[in-house]
């Protein structure tokens, strides 16, 4: 459906000049439909460049990208269409709201897809429902609302296109813990209901650890790790060495191991940590 295949992707800035720099290279990935992927990497590691290739905002310097079996860079038309299939929510999306009313802003995407009025209306309501934007707000100006509400409206604006793949760049940036949890819950619910692939770029390791089925780690333009949360976070020292955070439970597990406690690798949630410590107590090992 919207399976993504990336082949030998390379993107170079200022090609042919002495300032030439490869933002990303040698990227080979397959992301099956419906997967929830976390993408992590230090600032400048290429993750932003990478995600902008998936909806053809950027074109590869070399390599190919397929979505649902089709080469997305084949033609101007395919580049345009893939933006309806792969939705991208940028950081601080609330800064892009522009319409007079909330309804119209959410409708912007579907309108650009040249859908019928009824279809647009249906999608707007559906999308608003997914992120918890109530109907009472539809006729209000988005600029009057709170930051959290604005963000949800912006996300709804992308979901309204019914993309098979939803990419979110730091969707919880600047939100308080409650706001973070709500947005992530909404995203997970959306995925469950629609079967969409979700790609989450984040610096928040605890968020990623909690919900991602698969984690891809970028460093200096390349993919350096690709696996489940357990696999990736068992290489905590490596992650720290490339300038990344680790989930808080992982950091505490590392400190405990340093003090001599025997703990299994790949701890990344509080529950796992608690269970492991209690086992040590039970077994009398330390």
């Amino acid at each position, binding site marked *: 459906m919207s399976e993504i295949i990336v082949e030998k992707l390379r993107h170079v800035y200022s090609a042919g000049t002495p300032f030439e720099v490869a933002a990303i290279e040698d990227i080979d990935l397959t992301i099956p439909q419906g997967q929830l992927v976390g993408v992590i990497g230090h600032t400048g590691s290429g993750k932003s460049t990478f995600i*902008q290739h998936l*909806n053809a*905002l950027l074109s590869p310097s070399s390599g190919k990208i397929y979505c649902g079996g089709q080469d997305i860079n084949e033609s101007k038309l395919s580049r*345009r269409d893939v*933006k*309806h299939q792969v*939705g*991208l*929510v*940028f950081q601080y*999306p609330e*800064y*892009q*709201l*522009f319409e007079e009313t909330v309804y119209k802003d959410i409708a*912007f*995407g579907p309108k*650009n*897809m040249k859908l019928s009025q009824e279809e647009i209306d249906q999608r707007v309501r559906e999308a608003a429902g997914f992120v918890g934007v109530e109907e009472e707000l539809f006729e209000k100006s988005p*600029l009057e609302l709170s930051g959290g509400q604005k963000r949800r409206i912006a996300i709804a*604006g*992308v979901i309204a*296109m019914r993309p098979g793949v939803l990419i979110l760049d730091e969707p919880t940036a600047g939100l308080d813990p409650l706001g973070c949890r709500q947005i992530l819950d909404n995203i997970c619910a959306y995925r469950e209901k629609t079967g969409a692939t979700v790609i989450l770029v984040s610096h928040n390791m605890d968020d990623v650890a909690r919900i991602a089925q698969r984690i891809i780690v970028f460093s200096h333009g390349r993919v350096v790790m690709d696996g489940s949360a357990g696999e990736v976070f068992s290489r905590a020292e490596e992650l720290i060495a490339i300038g990344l955070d680790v989930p808080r439970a992982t950091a505490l597990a590392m400190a405990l191991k340093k003090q001599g406690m025997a703990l299994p690798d790949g701890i990344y949630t509080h529950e796992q940590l608690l269970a492991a410590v209690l086992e040590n107590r039970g077994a009398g090992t330390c």
Partner: protein
Amino acid sequence: MLKDITLGQFFPGDTIAHRLDPRAKLLLVVLFIVALFQARGWVAYGILTLVVAVCMRVSHISGKNIFKGLKPMIFIIALTGVLNIFYTDGTPILPGWIITWEGIARAIQMVLRIVLLITGTFLLTYTTSPIALTDGLELLLNPLKKLRFPVHEMTIMMSMALRFIPTLIEETDKIMSAQKARGADFETGSLMERAKALLPVLVPLFVSAFRRADELAVAMESRCYHGGEGRTRMKQLIFAGRDYIALALGILLLAGIIGLKKLGL
């Protein structure tokens, strides 16, 4: 993409032209422009062209760079030349022709004048950073404060505008990408359609600009900003020997050109 636009075309360097006080350079440009409009004969134009060539050499600015800067003005330059060739009275170059010798001479001189004018100004912006320019301008205009002219306010507005140009360009880029991701199309369609398509970019940009201005104002007041009164400056512009010499040369040039005018050269 949009980040590639450089404003003012400042090329950092360490030539004597770079080291001159910006006020001296600003005054020199004024003197040069006045001299340019006083020039009448070939000798005068010749000297002015030579002066510009020497300045280019001294500032390590190549002809290629100047030419790049002149490109946008090609139309006006060509138009000037054409108008002067066809509409000057005098002796026709060939009997019955409209084009006169005087016409050709005038066309060359007028084209030269525009080119020298633009080149002279470019030399200023190539060798002086925008901040130095605004600093220099503020100090030169200071005496106008006595006439209640808001010199300080204007200067701080200019320098803050310069500070935010790259930031605003980056923001525009981001907003455009975000709207493109929602299917916005900025490339196809008639002029009207494309203008309308810019609304999703301009509105957020404006909103953000106002919010930015608000936050900046609070930040500035928190740092005890209260207008221009009582403000001191960390960086002082001080005239050095070379600035006086340069100005003297500039005044000599102007005097010389006026003298040549009187002599009909």
